[in-house]
């Protein structure tokens, strides 16, 4: 079972929930936590384990072989991303614009643009008793998160048994990275806060999940600040509120130190129990 933890707005508590929930579930069953927020991965700051595997991840980029090129101009004309520029007999490739579609490379009549791997990030796999933790980090100046998210999931598929619960710490927003992160999830937990920003971005996230045809529930973080618009909205729309994590300075302090919450804050443990029960019920339903 794959659960993506997402939110429209950044900083609502995705990482807090992902790391606490994963560790909490791992007290009973095997769990794998995957940090797919590859631009700014943070789950690793809260989860420790023994490093099991470390891999560089590559994307394929065309490299110009001058000797073979007859400057026909096909490569430039087929690239829809303006990643290839021809000036006279000279071809320049802009790797950060390239989407690795292979069109230039394979349509080149003289094979002058073979594809070569270029490092786009690093994957690390840590292990502790019941918990596997996998994270990927995008190289600075590398602009596209999607290919790295994709490869991270491929790694999980190859290395983690199907029946282990997978928790995705997803990137913020509503565009391509979060779609790549959540598209194969069985269930989405949308984390929000009860403020106008949180509410506005929750609605955007819901639109996105509906477009993807995903089942989802909501967790309200920092419950008690702001107003009750989120709750009223969820009630009206029949959206399940899975849990409410209270607003407290103590929680913010523990978070700031990179500490998990549920051991020292019983209210958080109670809320995690609720989410656990919900997940177990979902699993039962899926088996049926």
């Amino acid at each position: 079972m794959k659960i993506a933890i997402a939110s429209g707005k950044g900083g609502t508590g995705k990482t807090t929930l992902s790391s606490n929930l994963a560790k909490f579930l791992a007290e009973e069953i095997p769990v794998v936590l995957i940090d797919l927020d590859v631009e700014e991965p943070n789950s690793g700051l809260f989860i420790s384990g023994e490093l099991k595997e470390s891999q560089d991840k590559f994307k394929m980029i065309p490299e110009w072989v001058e000797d073979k090129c007859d400057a026909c101009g096909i490569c430039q004309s087929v690239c829809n991303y303006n990643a290839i520029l021809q000036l006279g007999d000279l071809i320049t490739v802009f790797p950060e614009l390239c989407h690795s579609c292979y069109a230039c490379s394979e349509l080149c009549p003289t094979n002058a643009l073979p594809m070569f791997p270029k490092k786009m990030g690093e994957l690390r796999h840590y292990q502790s008793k019941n918990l596997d933790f996998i994270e990927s980090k995008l190289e600075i100046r590398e602009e596209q998160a999607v290919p790295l998210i994709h490869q991270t999931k491929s790694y999980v598929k190859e290395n983690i048994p199907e029946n282990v619960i997978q928790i995705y710490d997803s990137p913020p927003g509503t565009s391509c990275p979060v779609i790549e992160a959540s598209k194969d999830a069985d269930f989405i937990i949308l984390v929000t806060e009860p403020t106008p920003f949180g509410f506005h971005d929750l609605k955007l996230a819901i639109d996105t999940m509906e477009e993807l045809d995903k089942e989802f529930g909501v967790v309200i973080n920092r419950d008690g600040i702001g107003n009750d618009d989120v709750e009223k909205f969820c009630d009206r729309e029949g959206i399940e509120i899975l849990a409410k994590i209270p607003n407290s300075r103590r929680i913010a302090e523990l978070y700031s130190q990179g500490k998990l919450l549920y051991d020292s804050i019983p209210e958080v443990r109670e809320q995690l129990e609720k989410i656990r029960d919900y997940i177990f019920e979902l699993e039962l339903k899926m088996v049926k």
Partner: protein
Amino acid sequence: MKEIVVISGKGGTGKTSLTASFAELAGENVVVADCDVDAADMHLLLKPDFAKSEDFYSGYTAKIIQDECIQCGKCAEVCRFNAIPVVREKYVVDPIACEGCGYCARVCPTDAIEMNDAYSGKLYVSETKAGSPMVHARLGIGADNSGKLVTKVKTEAKEIAVKKNKDFIIVDGSPGIGCPVVSSLSGADFVVLVTEPSVSGFHDLKRVYELLKTFRLKAGCIINKSDLNFEITNEIKTFLEEENIIHLADLPYDESFTKAMTNGKTIVEFDNGELKEKIENIWKDISNN
């Protein structure tokens, strides 16, 4: 004209609340650009009038004309994005997976694939309640290319600033270090980094600063919620000193941020005390820097 871009790496540090406050303090002498197009929130505080809107298209999406298709499958074979599955014995394009490269259309032997402009979102040109022009956007659901939409927002803002002779452009950037952030940063004169003293906040600040360094941009930093963790606040200060980043201010952990937002106001409209004064001083520093 001076372009000030506010970013944070990590979300939820108070970036938008502060950016909106600066916009409020700049009065009419500013063009506001909300470049966090993925989850644009600044309009909730600045109350723009959504006066003008236009659809924005960027990139392409493939579409197979079924009458012309001979089911040879060449398109699916060359597609690197797995965007052409077989559904009910027919090849069809999954518009969300399609990245618009057009390779399929080029190899199709019967020209059965057309490349259509992809809807990216809506662009708005408004006037805020403070009387300043504001350019903002709403990314289409599942749309690609948020970087291109960011560039469009910025270009539009710049044109208005030149035309109306404004001294400032204030840009609310997006979280992360990927394409929308890179697009937000291009052309900036000064970058304001908003961070918080948490292990995540500091980690993300360092990463986004690595990106900034490659642009060689001048930057200043606000440590928000600085009293939450004095140890990390001090570590951040050391980092700022080492990297020659201007330390603009420390702001306390203060629920006025949320209360102002809940009232649909910027902090400088809502608070009349020390917090307001501090933000006014930061704006003075930024605008004179």
